[in-house]
C-alpha cells in the first residue's frame, strides 16, 4: 500500500517538475507578453497542483494535509486572477500583441 502511494507521489512530483520546466521555457521562448501569460498559466495550475498533490501523498492524513489543501486552493484561486489582472493591465495600457490582431476594437 505504502509503496503504491510512494510511486504515485513520485509520478506526481516528476510530472509536476516537467510541466513547470516546460512552462517556464515557454515564458522564455514565446514571442510576446500575451502568449507568455499562457505559458506561465501551466506552471501555476496543473504543475503546482501536481507537486502539492505529490506532497500530500507523502504527508498522509493530518494537519499537514489540510494545510497543503489550503495552499492548493489558494493558488488555484489567485493565479487565474493574477494573470487576468496582468492581461487586463497590459491591454489597458495599450500593449499591442505580436503577430496578427483581429477584431481589435480599442475602447
Amino acid at each position: 500500500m505504502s509503496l503504491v502511494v510512494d510511486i504515485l507521489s513520485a509520478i506526481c512530483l516528476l510530472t509536476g517538475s516537467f510541466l513547470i520546466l516546460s512552462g517556464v521555457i515557454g515564458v522564455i521562448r514565446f514571442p510576446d507578453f500575451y502568449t507568455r501569460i499562457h505559458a506561465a498559466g501551466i506552471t501555476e495550475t496543473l504543475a503546482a497542483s501536481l507537486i502539492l498533490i505529490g506532497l500530500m501523498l507523502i504527508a498522509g492524513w493530518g494537519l499537514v494535509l489540510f494545510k497543503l489543501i489550503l495552499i492548493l486552493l489558494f493558488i488555484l484561486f489567485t493565479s487565474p486572477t493574477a494573470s487576468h489582472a496582468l492581461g487586463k493591465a497590459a491591454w489597458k495600457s495599450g500593449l499591442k500583441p505580436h503577430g496578427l490582431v483581429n477584431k481589435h476594437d480599442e475602447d
Partner: protein
Amino acid sequence: MSMDAVDVAFTEAAVGAGISPLLMLATLAIVGRYQKTSATLPSPAAAFILVFITGSLLIVGTLDMPAFGAADAPAQLHVAPRYIHLSGEEIGIPNMVTSVLASYRAYDTLGEVVVIFTAGIGVLSLLGFSNSQNNAYFIDKIIAQDEHKILRIVAKILIPPILLFSLYVQFHGDFGPGGGFQAGVIFAAAIILYTLFFGLEVARKVINQTFIRVLASLGVLLYGSVGLVSLLSGKNYLDYHVFADDPQTAQHIGILVIELGVGITVACVMMLIFFSFIENIKQEEVR
C-alpha cells in the same frame, strides 16, 4: 531556508514581498516616474573602484571568521545554549524565537516597537495629517474608473480569510513561526488590498483613522503597562511571574499580552503609513 530561520523567513515573506515594494511604488507614483539621463553621479568608475576595494578588504577579513554552521562559533557560546536548553522548561512554549523575543529579551522588543511607533509618527508628521481631501478624491476617482469586476469579487472572497489567517499567526506564535510582528504586517496587507479596490474613502469609513492612531499608541501602552504591573508588584520590569503562581502559565499570559500589543501597534502603524502614502498620490504634472 537552509539556515533554519523560520520566523525570519516568515517576516521577510510578509514584509519583503508585500509592504515594501508597494511603498516604493507608492512613492514612485507620487514623485513621478521620470528618469533623468544624468542619473549617475559624475564618476561611477571611482565608485566602482571604491566598492571593489572595500569588498576585497571585507573578504580578506572573513578569512578569520568561523565557518558556516560551526557549532563552536562565538555566537553559539554565550547565552544561546541557555535559550536552547532551558526555554522549554522556563517559558513552556515550543517556539524558542518567541520565548526569546517576548520573554528573555522583552525589553529589547519594547524598544523596537517604540521605534516602529516613532517611525509611524514621523511619517504622519512629514506627510500631513490628511488635510487635503481632494487628493483622496483623485485616487478614488481612478479606482472607480476602471471596472475590476473579477478582481473585486475575488478580493471580497479573499479578504476575510487573510484577516483570519493573520489572527491565527498572531495567536500561534507560541507554537510555530509567527507572532505579533508578522501578524500585524499580514493584517495591514489585507487592508491594503481592500483599499486598492474599494477606494480610500470607503476604507477610511471602515477603518477609522483617529481610532487606529489611538490604537497604535494603545498597543505600545499595553506592552509598557505589562512591565509596569510587574514593577508595581515588586518584581523586575516585564517580569511575568506576577500574573500567575505557576511560572509557565504566567509566562504564557505575559507573552500573549505582549504579542497582542506588538501586533496591534505594527498593524496600525503599517496601515497609517500606507494611508498617508496613498493620500499623497496626486497629479504633479497636471498641477
